[in-house]
């Protein structure tokens, strides 16, 4: 299915050449407004991570208690899921740059699909967590857990909306507006990036 229809195949060889081309000249990815948003968002999350690290140090026993009840398996699966969706969206950007909009649309759908699966897995994880109840003494950990994963959940939802807008852009006849597609992809990579840090801090930290 990934091979795309006939038209895309001929154009695929110069797909790689495009790859070498981009290395030569410096090019600003996406729109500056999106970078303003990404960098600002990173700083906002930095404050959350700082408070988390500080509180974690102070009563680390309670945090460990809470953390042990989290299942790292689901966390790893979610991480790999978002990494895959990031890869697919990156391929979509390269395909869009090449004008292979049909292939780009298919890759975007796959990436968005992974995002939706991520949301479902996260929601079920919460539901399990809430229904089994929280071990006492670790509620401060779980305020952070629900706050960080909740905010990330909303970022993923906003990311899906942006991917939908990119999909609509790719549906239009004629060459797509590449900077817009790149910005959508950059936001999606931001969401993936935030999850990598949240996963490390919440699930694996000792």
């Amino acid at each position, binding site marked *: 299915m990934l091979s795309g229809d006939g038209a895309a195949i001929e154009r695929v060889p110069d797909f790689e050449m495009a790859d070498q081309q981009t290395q030569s000249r410096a090019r600003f990815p996406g729109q500056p*407004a999106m970078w*303003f948003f990404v960098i600002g968002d990173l700083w906002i999350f930095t404050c959350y991570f700082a408070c988390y690290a500080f509180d974690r140090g102070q009563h680390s026993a309670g945090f460990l208690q809470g953390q042990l009840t989290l299942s790292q398996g689901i966390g790893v699966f979610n991480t790999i899921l978002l990494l895959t969706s990031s890869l697919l969206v990156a391929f979509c950007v390269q395909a869009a740059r090449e004008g292979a909009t049909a292939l780009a649309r298919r890759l975007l759908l796959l990436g968005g699909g992974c995002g939706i699966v991520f949301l479902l897995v996260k929601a079920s994880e919460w539901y399990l967590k809430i229904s089994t109840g929280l071990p006492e003494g670790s509620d401060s950990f779980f305020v952070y857990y629900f706050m960080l994963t909740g905010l990330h959940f909303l970022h993923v939802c906003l990311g899906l909306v942006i991917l939908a807008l990119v999909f609509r852009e790719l549906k239009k006849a004629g060459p797509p507006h590449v900077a817009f597609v790149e910005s959508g992809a950059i936001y999606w990579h931001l969401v993936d990036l935030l999850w990598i840090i949240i996963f490390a801090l919440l699930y694996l930290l000792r």
Partner: protein
Amino acid sequence: MTGATLASIAGGESRKGRLLSNPKLDQWICFWSIPVFYILFGVIFVLLGRIMPPPTPTMSTENIIAFMTSPNLSLAVVLLALSLGMYALNSGLMLTQMKRMVGVSPVLRYAYIAVLGVGGLPGCLFPGYMFALGAFRPEYDPEILAMLYDLGFLCFVGSLGCFIIQYVVFTIAVFLDKRGIFPKWLGYFSIWTLVTELVATPVFITQTGPYAWDGLLSFYQGTLIWVAWQTSVTICLYQAIKNQPLEELGLPLKENEL
């Protein structure tokens, strides 16, 4: 409105004896009411009432009584009752600029009006009344005073819904606008204010730590980003009014459009 009146508006300078002949006088009046309002806002909540930065939720009853009987708390609420209306001028200005946007239907303006109609009371005046009630009769039982103290701060720091929707409506309007009256980064900026409002949701659950109503994350970060947002909105409003073409002023109103 015939062309004559349009000329008279644009040619205001020529009219002798008119001291303030600036054609955009009404928008500049509302614009300069914004800094005045926020200076008053600062005086009321920070200096007089010492409501911002908020005291800890886990205060002992004596401190609560001391807070309630602080001399100029009720004066702060009086000033609030007098000056809260100025926020309507600020919102009116935003709506006037939103009306100039192309590709933005009036539904966003009506939503903005409705949200602002709701927003001011639970967020500002109602907490003020709770503190005023406490200050009015310090001889209440300590539990009643503690309840007023909690009710006041929870409403003040915790009323999020109406402001979130205000930011959502404003963000959509900025992104849909094809004329670019407000820059796109302002749209992204209001997404942050929306995010920080969401971070304040655990205010109703925890009483200690960074998510309490005086916590670093739900209060200080939210207020910092809100202040930065309001400053950048004011700057963008200034730009929008300044480069509003003169012939756009005094346009006749389309029949059914607010």
